[in-house]
C-alpha cells in the first residue's frame, strides 16, 4: 500500500473520530474531572452570582459531609438498596430466564417480550402508576394482599415499608433486562449436560446448583455488577414516589446530591458527594471482579 494512501487513511481516521472525541472531552471528561476540583471549593449560590466569591477550602466539604446525619442516612439507604435489591433482582431475573428458556415452553417470543416490556417504559410514568398500585386504601397491591387476609400496608407512608415498596417497583422495572442477558448465557449451556444429570436422578435444584450455575457464573457476576451500579443510581424512583420520605427513609446518594446541588445550590458539597459515589461504584466493581477471579469464574 502506498504511503499517500496510508496518510489519507490516518487523516480520515482522525477526521471521523475527532468530533465525537471532542464532545466526549468537553461534555464528559472535563465535567468529571471538574467535579473533583469543585469538591475542594465552597461553590454556592454566591459564587454562582459572582465567581469572585469562590474559595478553595481543601477537605472541608468532605469533613462536613461526614458530620451530616442526612448524608449517612443516604449512604445507609443506598447500601440497603444494594444489599436487598441485588440478590432479589438477580434471583428474579435468573428464574424468569430459566422459565423462558424451558424446552417445554410454547410461544416463547411472546412471553419474552411481555417480561421485558417494563424495562423500556418511561420510569417517571410507571413510578406514577406504581404509586397508585401501592396506595394504602385503593391500591391493587393491598387489595391482592387482603385476599390472603393481610392487613393494608402503608407502603409509601411507613418508613419501614417505603424501601421495600421502591424495591418492588425497581425489580419489576429492571428484571427483564437481566433476564435477556441470562437467557443468552443459558442458551450456551449444552442441553445434554442437563439431560445427563436428570437421567442420573438429579433433582431440579441440584441441577441448578451443579450444572446451570457453574456454567453461567461469569454472567451472574456481570449481571450483579450491572445491578449494583443501577442501585447506586436510583434517583427518579424516590423523587416521584416518595420525595425521599417518609422520615428520609428513601433518600439515596444521588437524591441527596441533587438536593445539595440544585435545591440548596451547594455545588461544592454536591460535587464531593458525586466523587464519593464514583469511588463507591468503582470499589464495588473492583471487589466483585477480584472475588470472581479468586473463585475462577473468569
Amino acid at each position, binding site marked *: 500500500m502506498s504511503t499517500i494512501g496510508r496518510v489519507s487513511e490516518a487523516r480520515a481516521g482522525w477526521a471521523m473520530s475527532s468530533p465525537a472525541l471532542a464532545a466526549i472531552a468537553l461534555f464528559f471528561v472535563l*465535567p468529571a474531572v471538574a467535579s473533583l476540583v469543585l469538591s475542594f471549593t465552597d461553590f454556592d449560590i454566591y459564587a454562582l452570582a459572582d465567581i469572585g466569591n469562590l474559595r478553595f477550602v481543601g477537605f472541608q466539604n468532605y469533613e462536613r459531609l461526614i458530620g451530616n446525619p442526612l448524608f449517612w442516612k443516604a449512604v445507609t439507604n443506598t447500601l440497603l438498596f444494594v444489599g436487598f435489591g441485588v440478590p432479589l433482582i438477580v434471583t428474579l431475573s435468573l428464574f424468569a430466564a430459566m422459565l423462558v428458556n424451558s424446552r417445554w415452553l410454547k410461544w416463547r417470543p411472546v412471553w419474552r417480550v411481555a*417480561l421485558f416490556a417494563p424495562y423500556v417504559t418511561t420510569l417517571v410514568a410507571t413510578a406514577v402508576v406504581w404509586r397508585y398500585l401501592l396506595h394504602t386504601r385503593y391500591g391493587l397491591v393491598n387489595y391482592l394482599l387482603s385476599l390472603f387476609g393481610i392487613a393494608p400496608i402503608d407502603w409509601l407512608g411507613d418508613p419501614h415499608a417505603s424501601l421495600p415498596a421502591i424495591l418492588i417497583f425497581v425489580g419489576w422495572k429492571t428484571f427483564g433486562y437481566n433476564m435477556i442477558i441470562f437467557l443468552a448465557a443459558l442458551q450456551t449451556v449444552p442441553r445434554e449436560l442437563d439431560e445427563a444429570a436428570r437421567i442420573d436422578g438429579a433433582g431440579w435444584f441440584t441441577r441448578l446448583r451443579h450444572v446451570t450455575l457453574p456454567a453461567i457464573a461469569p454472567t451472574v457476576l456481570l449481571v450483579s455488577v450491572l445491578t449494583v451500579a443501577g442501585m447506586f443510581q436510583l434517583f427518579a424512583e424516590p423523587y416521584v414516589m416518595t420525595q425521599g420520605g417518609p422520615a428520609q427513609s428513601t433518600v439515596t446518594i444521588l437524591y441527596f446530591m441533587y438536593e445539595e446541588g440544585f435545591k440548596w445550590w451547594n455545588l461544592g458539597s454536591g460535587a464531593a458527594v458525586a466523587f464519593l459515589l464514583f469511588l463507591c461504584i468503582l470499589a464495588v466493581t473492583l471487589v466483585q471482579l477480584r472475588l470472581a477471579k479468586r473463585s475462577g469464574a473468569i
Partner: protein
Amino acid sequence: MSLRRWSVTLLAAFVALLTIAPLLWMLSVSFMARGEASQFPPPLLPSDPSLDNYRMLFGSFGIGRFLLNSLLISTLATVLALLFTIPAGYAFAKLRFKGRDATFRLLVAALVVPGQIGMLPLFLELKAMGLVNSYAGALVPWLAGIFGIFLVRQYCLSIPDEMLEAARIDGASEAQILRRIVLPILTPIIVTLALFVFLGSWNDFMWPLIILADQDLYTLPVALAAMSRQHVQDNELMMAGAVVTTLPVLILFLALQRFYLTGLLTGSVKG
C-alpha cells in the same frame, strides 16, 4: 410430556400477565371517570369508558406542548448521536491512525464512570456557554455517547478489509467508502443505536429536570413528575398522563424489538 408442556406455558403466561398488569391497569384507569378508581376494591375496568381525561390533558393542561418537546429533543438527540458516533465507531474499527488503540482503551475504561458524576460541573459549563434552559442544553449529553461508539465499532470489525482496500484501489475517497460501502452494511446496528438513543432520551429524567427550568421547555417525564406532585388525588388524570408519556416508546419498542434485543446483547456481553 404434554402435561409438562402446558404447565410450563401456563406458568409463563401467569408471570407475563402479572408483569404487564400494571400497564394494562394504567390504560384501563385512564378511561375512567374522575374518582372512579378511588374505591375499594379497586375496579378493574371503567364502567363508562370515556376520553375525558385525555381531553383535559391536551386542553387545560397543555400536554401537547410537552409531547412536542419530547419528540423534538429525542429526534434531534438521535440524529446528532448517529452523526457523531457512526464515523467514530467505524474509524476505531477500520482506519489505521496513530494513537487509535490507546484512545479506544481510554474510552472503554471511561464506560465505568457514570454520567451523573459530572452533572454539577456540566451544568456550570453549560451556564457559561448560555445553554442552560434550552433544547441544546438537554441534547448535549447525547453527543458524548461512548457506548454508541463501542457498539458501532464491534459491528464494523466484521467488515472484511479487502472490501475497503478494493474500493481504495478503485480511487474512492475515505468519505465515499464510509457513505457508499460501510453505511449500507451498518443499517441494522444504526437502527439499534437510533432506537437506544431515542428511547434513552425520551425516558431520561434527571438531566432535563436539571437543565430545563422554563415550563414551556419541559419534556413529558419532567412535566408528568411536576403534575404528579400537584395532583396527587387525580388518579385517572395521572394515569392518562402516564399513558401519553410511555405509550409512544412502548409501541416503538414493540415494532422494532428485534433490533433492540440484539443490540442489548452486543452491548452487555462484551465479546
